[in-house]
């Protein structure tokens, strides 16, 4: 990648190749559990990783959760789509502030806070 012009390439200390075809055994193992888990309409659209688009249909949400295991996380596009849909404030709920930092990379003026 450096030969192709990348500024840096960092090996991450994670267990393995998440969101790749190598996770196929995990996808197969999880698909029944996800299929049998009750999911109802969320109170607002959820932008999902597989296609970066907003979803409210429970059947589609489940299919996307299953597919997510072997598909890349399209977070760049997710942030762009949320901003295009009118998001002007981002609240990060959970440990750390990684996602606030990622949003700032696509929109420096955006208001971001910890939940």
């Amino acid at each position, binding site marked *: 990648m450096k030969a*192709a012009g990348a500024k*840096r390439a960092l090996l991450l200390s*994670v267990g393995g190749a998440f969101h790749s075809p190598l996770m196929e055994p995990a996808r197969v*193992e999880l698909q029944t559990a996800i299929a049998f888990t*009750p999911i109802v309409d969320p109170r607002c659209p959820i932008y999902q990783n597989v296609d970066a688009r907003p979803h409210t249909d429970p059947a589609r949400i489940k299919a996307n*959760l299953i597919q997510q295991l072997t598909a890349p996380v399209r977070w760049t596009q997710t942030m762009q789509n949320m901003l295009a849909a009118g*998001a002007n*404030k981002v609240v990060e709920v959970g440990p750390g502030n990684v996602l606030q930092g990622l949003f700032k990379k696509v929109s420096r003026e955006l208001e971001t806070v910890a939940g």
Partner: protein
Amino acid sequence: MTAYVFPGQGSQFPGMGKDLYDADNNARIWFEHANDLLGFNLTDIMFKGSEEDLKQTNVTQPAIFLHSVVKAKVLGDSFRPDMVAGHSLGEFSALVAAGAMEFADGMKLVAARANAMQKACELQPSTMAAILGLDDAKVEEVCKTIPGIVVPANYNYPGQLVIDGSRKR
């Protein structure tokens, strides 16, 4: 419009969630409920474990999910999302926070997901790497030229793409 977003693996840190547990009775109930559902004391690892303890996928994923979901519960009526999203496992936190999935179902699914992913990792040694300062299209192109499985995993922001690769045994 307000977007609520939920982090994924990598956001964990020693002591995570302890402030919530100490400050809020409801939070304590949810944390204890999670320990019962999981059959092990996750909160002990979150509050007292080392960085290394928290790095095991089967701990990391439930810990981040639990921290996010309890935080959303504690927000109560001030949690007013117009849209939500979660990074990787954060998608499960987002669904529970947005009322689409029950807490217990989400907790059990995330634990099962973490175990299944850990098992898959043991079948085929592999890793991830962050590529900085290169167009996504260029990274995709280079990935295709490398033998074995080398694919994009996380498109994090323009100029940072995390890729996956299999390791030689």
